[in-house]
């Protein structure tokens, strides 16, 4: 599958509250609450306002996380991005 490009929800659309081991994300556009664990909040944070594909994201996260075996990390990131898209927290750019 092609490396799709996504953009995260604008920062002012989200209210992010860490609750112990979970992070609660409230989306003001959908009025939905999403409960997520790492690395979801980190992915959103790393994307910022830019259009990102998996390769960009892997590069940005490599600094914060010890991303080994590039292929493996990329397929995981692609899955997480698809999940974030299902939640509506990222959209195809």
């Amino acid at each position, binding site marked *: 599958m092609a490396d799709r490009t996504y953009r995260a929800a604008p920062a002012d659309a989200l*209210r992010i*509250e860490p*609750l*112990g*081991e*979970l992070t*609660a994300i*409230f989306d*003001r556009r959908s*009025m939905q*609450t999403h*409960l997520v664990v790492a690395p979801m909040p980190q992915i959103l944070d790393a994307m910022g306002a830019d259009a990102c594909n998996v390769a960009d994201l892997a590069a940005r996260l490599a600094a914060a996380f010890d991303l080994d075996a590039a292929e493996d990390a990329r397929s995981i990131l692609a899955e997480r991005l698809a999940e974030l898209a299902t939640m509506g927290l990222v959209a195809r750019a």
Partner: protein
Amino acid sequence: MRHQARIAVGPVQFRIGSDWPEPIAALERLYADYPRDDARPADATVRLFAARPWRRWVRPSVHIGGDFIVPDALPLPLSMGLLAAEMGMNLQVALGWRRHLLLHASAVARDGRALIMSGESGSGKSTLAALLGEQADGGDWRLMGDEFTLIDPVGGDAFAFPRAVSLKNQAIAEVAARVDAARLGPLLAATPKGDIRHLVPRADAIAAMHEPARPALLLFPRFGGETSVERMGEGEAFVRLTEASTNYVALGEAGFAALTRFVRETPAFGISYSDSAAGLALVGQLWAEAAR
């Protein structure tokens, strides 16, 4: 409708209409000592009605309706009209109330601070709250409600919904032994929810029903099994309370803000207990720690 009553429980003014006099008479007796303001417009409407006109007399069965209706709800026989009224009132609040975050939880308060207990029916949350509200020694707990606890989205305080407590099965005898019989409703035997008998809260609890209390302790009781106490993280408490709330989604960001604040400020525990005495002891111990 032919017969009607107006009852205020906490912040909710009910208008209850019925095709039969009996459920209204039973409600009027049970809620005789609640403050009344008959001129105040109703927040919620409950209707107890016969599906067909002749069903008022022939094998009368009570359908529950009102502002909100559950399409496939089964009717109850007229002898259980009081239960139908109670279910109707709960239904309207659960589906219609928007002023507070509504938690399916019992609550008691002392010194302006609230102990809130959330759980499915059968968890014992209702019985524990009723027993705390009746405790003879140091009985300064105020019963706030056995079914719903209301959280103010702005200030975070808990507000009471002290409807008549719905005692079920074994809890009936346990509580009846401690209270004046005049505070008990009629025994409704073999209802779809088992045996039921209503308990009117103490007069001081009814008088104080508009007073807020600060949430201080959140418990998720489980009746049966070894006594145990387990601290619950903010995340898990949050998830369980969203499931225990009937209007969390409808409140939008106000509900989110109220609930995140609630779980951050209120220590939460899951507790298991084998009988009421053990349950009350656990609650006492955890309250002493939380209230310090």
